[in-house]
C-alpha cells in the first residue's frame, strides 16, 4: 500500500485550516472583520495605494541648506571666539566647503587662536544628543595650513549627523502636519540618507496636502526700516542690516510684487508660537489667523511693540511678507492675529502650518503617484474578474486533460488561492495591482507541478507499471524537476523584490508566495487526495 506518513496528513490539514482561517477575514466586510473576537485571525490583506486610492510621495530634504546654515553659524562662533581670545586683527573669515577659515594677522597669536578654536569645537560640535565623540573618528579638525590660514573643518561624520537630525526633524514636522489634515493611517518614513517616503491613503485633494507638507513655513516678525522706504531702497543702496522682501499677494500696477524694506533683526520668530487657529475678524468678518506666543515670545513681542508704537512691522513667511500692520498699542497679552488676504481655506492651512512648526530645510518632491478612489475600485473589480475567469479556464482545461486526476489538481489549486490570501494577510503583505497580476499568473503556473507529475505517471503507466508504483515513480522522478523549475522562478521573483519599488514589489511578493504555496498544494495536497482515492477504490488502471 502506498504510504503517506501520518504527520504529513496532519501537516497538510493544519496548513489548510490555517490558510482558511487567515484568508477568511478577506471575504467579509471590513466592519465585520474588525468586530471579530481577538483570538481569531481578523487581519485583512492590506491594499496598496494603487488599489485603495491615495498618494505616494517621495521627497528630498535639502540637507545642504541645513549644513550651510550651520557652517554660517559656526563662522559667527569662530569670530566671537577669536575676539574673546583677545585677537583683534584677522582677515579672510569665511566658509569654504565644510570648513570655516580665518587668517590671524599676527602669526604669534596663531597658537592662542588654535587653542581657543579647538575648545570651541569640543564644546559645540557634538553628535547624537550632545555627546562628545571620544572614539576614533574626530568630529572636526582645526589646523594651520601652509598659507598661515587656520582651517576649522567639520568632518563627514558631523555633517552626516546634521543631515540625519534635519531629516528626522522634517519627518516629525511632516507627521504633525499630515495628522492635522486628518489623513487616516499615513506612512512617513526615511529612505536613504536624505529622502522621505510619504504614503497617504484615501487623499481627496493631493495638491493641497502636497502644498501643506512641502512648505518650510518659517515665520518671523520684523520691523520695517524707520527712515528708508522700499522705493528708495530699490532705486539706491539698501541700508546695512536691512533687506527687501516682496509681498506674498499684492502687486503694483505693472505686475511686480509690492516690496518692503525690513530690518533683518528678528523681533520674534514662529518658534515661540504655542498655538494658532483660523478665525474671523470681529469688525470686517474676514478670515484671519490668530496666534499665541509662549511666555518668552510674549514678553519679547510686548517689549518691541511697546517701544515702537506707530511703526509698521512685517509678518514674514518663507521670505514673503504676508501682512504689514501698524503697531497701534503695545501688544502685551502674547496673542495676536494676522489679517492677510486669506480665504477660509488658506487661513486654515496657515494656522495648521504655524501649529506644526517649520521644516529645517526645503522639501522637494522627486516622485508622486496618486490614484483616485474610482480607479482603485475599478482595478480591484477588473482584477477579481480576471482572476475568477482565469481560474475557471484553467480548472476546465485541467479537468478535460487529466480527468479525475485533473480534479485532484484543481482542488489544491483552489486551496492555493486560499493559501495565497492567507499568506498575504498573515505576513501582512501589501496587495497591489501588479500583485493581482502575480496571482493570476500563479494560477496558470501553479498546475505545472501537477502537470509534471501526471505526465510522468502517464509514462510510467505506459511502460507497464501498476497504478501504485506508477504514482510512486511519477512523484519521485518529477520532484527534482519541480524544485529546479520553481527555484529558478523564485530567483527572478526575489531579485525583482530587491530591485523593484512600490507596486512592482507587490508583484514579486504574490509571485513568491504563490510559488511557495503552489509547491505545497501541488505536491502534498494532491498527493494526499490521490493516496486516499487509491486506498478507497484500489483501481486496476489509472484514469490519467
Amino acid at each position, binding site marked *: 500500500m502506498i504510504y503517506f506518513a501520518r504527520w504529513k496528513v496532519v501537516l497538510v490539514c493544519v496548513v489548510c485550516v490555517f490558510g482558511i482561517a487567515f484568508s477568511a477575514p478577506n471575504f467579509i466586510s471590513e466592519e465585520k472583520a474588525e468586530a471579530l473576537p481577538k483570538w481569531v485571525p481578523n487581519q485583512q490583506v492590506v491594499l496598496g495605494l494603487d488599489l485603495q486610492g491615495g498618494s505616494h510621495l*517621495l521627497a528630498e530634504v535639502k540637507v545642504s541648506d541645513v549644513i550651510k546654515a550651520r557652517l554660517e553659524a559656526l563662522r559667527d562662533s569662530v569670530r566671537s571666539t577669536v575676539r574673546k581670545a583677545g585677537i583683534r586683527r584677522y582677515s579672510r573669515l569665511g566658509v569654504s566647503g565644510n570648513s570655516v577659515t580665518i587668517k590671524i594677522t599676527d602669526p604669534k597669536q596663531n597658537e592662542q587662536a588654535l587653542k581657543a578654536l579647538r575648545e570651541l569645537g569640543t564644546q559645540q560640535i557634538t553628535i547624537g544628543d550632545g555627546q562628545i565623540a571620544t572614539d576614533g573618528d574626530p568630529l572636526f579638525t582645526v589646523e594651520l595650513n601652509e598659507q598661515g590660514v587656520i582651517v576649522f573643518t567639520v568632518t563627514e561624520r558631523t555633517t552626516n549627523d546634521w543631515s540625519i537630525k534635519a531629516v528626522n526633524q522634517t519627518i516629525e514636522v511632516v507627521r504633525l502636519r499630515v495628522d492635522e489634515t486628518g489623513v487616516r493611517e499615513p506612512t512617513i518614513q526615511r529612505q536613504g540618507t536624505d529622502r522621505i517616503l510619504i504614503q497617504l491613503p484615501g487623499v481627496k485633494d*493631493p495638491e493641497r496636502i502636497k502644498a501643506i507638507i*512641502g512648505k518650510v513655513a518659517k515665520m518671523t516678525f520684523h520691523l520695517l526700516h524707520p527712515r528708508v522706504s522700499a522705493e528708495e531702497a530699490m532705486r539706491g543702496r539698501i541700508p546695512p542690516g536691512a533687506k527687501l522682501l516682496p509681498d506674498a499677494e499684492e502687486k503694483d500696477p505693472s505686475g511686480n510684487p509690492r516690496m518692503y524694506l525690513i530690518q533683518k533683526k528678528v523681533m520674534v520668530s514662529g518658534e515661540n508660537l504655542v498655538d494658532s487657529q483660523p478665525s474671523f475678524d470681529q469688525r470686517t468678518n474676514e478670515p484671519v489667523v490668530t496666534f499665541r506666543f509662549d511666555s518668552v515670545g510674549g514678553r519679547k513681542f510686548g517689549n518691541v511693540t511697546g517701544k515702537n508704537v506707530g511703526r509698521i512691522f512685517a509678518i514674514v513667511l518663507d521670505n514673503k511678507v504676508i501682512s504689514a500692520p501698524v503697531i497701534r498699542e503695545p501688544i502685551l497679552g502674547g496673542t495676536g492675529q494676522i489679517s492677510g488676504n486669506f480665504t477660509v481655506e488658506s487661513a486654515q492651512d496657515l494656522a495648521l502650518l504655524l501649529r506644526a512648526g517649520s521644516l529645517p530645510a526645503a522639501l*522637494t*518632491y*522627486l*516622485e*508622486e*503617484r*496618486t*490614484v*483616485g478612489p*474610482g*480607479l482603485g475600485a475599478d*482595478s480591484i473589480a*477588473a*482584477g477579481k474578474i*480576471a*482572476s475568477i*475567469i*482565469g481560474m475557471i*479556464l484553467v480548472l476546465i*482545461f*485541467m479537468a*478535460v*486533460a487529466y480527468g*479525475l486526476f485533473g480534479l485532484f489538481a484543481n482542488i489544491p489549486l483552489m486551496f492555493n488561492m486560499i493559501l495565497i490570501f492567507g499568506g498575504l494577510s498573515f505576513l501582512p503583505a501589501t496587495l497591489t*495591482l*501588479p500583485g493581482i*497580476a502575480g496571482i*493570476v*499568473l500563479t494560477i*496558470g*503556473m501553479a*498546475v*505545472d507541478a501537477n*502537470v*509534471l507529475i501526471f*505526465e510522468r505517471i502517464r*509514462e510510467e503507466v505506459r511502460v507497464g507499471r501498476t497504478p501504485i508504483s506508477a504514482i510512486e515513480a511519477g512523484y*519521485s522522478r518529477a*520532484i*527534482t*524537476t519541480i524544485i*529546479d*523549475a520553481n527555484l*529558478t*522562478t523564485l530567483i*527572478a521573483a526575489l*531579485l*525583482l523584490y*530587491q*530591485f*523593484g*519599488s512600490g507596486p*512592482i514589489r507587490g*508583484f514579486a511578493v504574490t509571485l513568491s508566495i504563490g510559488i511557495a504555496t503552489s509547491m505545497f498544494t501541488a505536491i502534498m495536497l494532491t498527493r494526499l487526495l490521490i493516496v486516499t482515492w487509491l486506498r478507497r477504490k484500489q483501481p486496476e488502471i*489509472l*484514469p*490519467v
Partner: protein
Amino acid sequence: MAWHGFNFIPAGIKYSFIPFRKLFFLFSALLIVGSLGLYFVKGLNYGIDFKGGILIEVRTAGDKADIAAMRALFKDSGLGEVALQEFGRPTDVLIRVQRQEGGEKAQQVAVAKVKQILGDKVTYRRTESVGPKVSEELFWDGVYAVLAAILAILIYIWFRFEWQFGLGAVIALSHDVLSTIGLFALFQLEFNLSTVAAVLTIAGYSINDTVVVFDRVRENLRKYKKMPLSELFNNSINETLSRTVMTSVTTLLALLALYILGGEIIKDFSLAMIWGVIIGTYSSICLAVPILLYLSIDRGADVSDNKEEVAGEAT
C-alpha cells in the same frame, strides 16, 4: 467508473525538432537582429518611470471625451510635448507631459498647471510625476535587476547541471529577453517598471521550461550511453512535449483572462507576458536543446549526478 483525461499531445509522438535546428537558428538569429535593429532605429517608448515626466488619467463628464478640444487647451501651455489619448473607455483620457526642464521642482509646478488648465470639470483618476533623479535610478535598478537575474540563473543552472547546460539556458533566455524588447520597440508599447517585471518573469518562466527539458536530457544521457546525441535530444524534447504544451496553455489561459479583463493599466504587461510564454516555450525546445549539440557534452558518468539520483529515489 473513473473519469479519464484527454491526451492533447498523443503518447509516443516523434516530431522532428533537432533535424530542423538550422532553420530555428536562422529564425532566431533574424529575430534577434531584427529586435536589436528596431531597438537602435526606433528606440523604446520609455514611460515616465524611466524618462521622467507627468502622466495624468482623467475621466470626463458625458459620454465621450472631446480630445481635440482638450488638446487645444494645452496648445500655449508652455509645457512642451503634451500627448493625449483615449484610455480604456471613451470618457477616459490619458495625458502625458514630457519631463520639464529645470529639475525636480519644475515637475510639480507642471502638475499643478495641468490641473489648473483642466479645472474641476474632470475627475482625476491617476496622477504620476517622476523627476529626473528618480527616473534615472529606476532605469538603472531595472537594468541591474535583469542582469542580476540572468547571472543568478546562470549560476544556478551551472551548479545543478554542467556548464554547457548553463550556457544553453542563458542563450535561450537572452533570446527571449531581447525579442521581448524588440516587440516593445516594434509596436512602441510603453516600456516601464511593469515591463521590467514582465521581462524578469519571462526570464523565470523561460528557464523553468528549459530546466524541465534539460532534466530529461540529463536523465536520458545516463540511460542511453550509446544513442546518438541528436536522436537522444529529439526524444527528450518529445517526451516532455506534452508537459511543455500543457503548462504553456494553462499559463496562457490565465494571462489571456488578465489581458482581456484585467484593466487598461496592466494590458501591456499581460501582452509582454503572453509573448514571453510563447517565445520561452519555443526557445527551450528549439534553441536551448539543439545548442547543446555544439557544446561537446561529456557523456562519461558524472559522480555528482549519480548521487542525486540516489537521493531522488529515497524520497
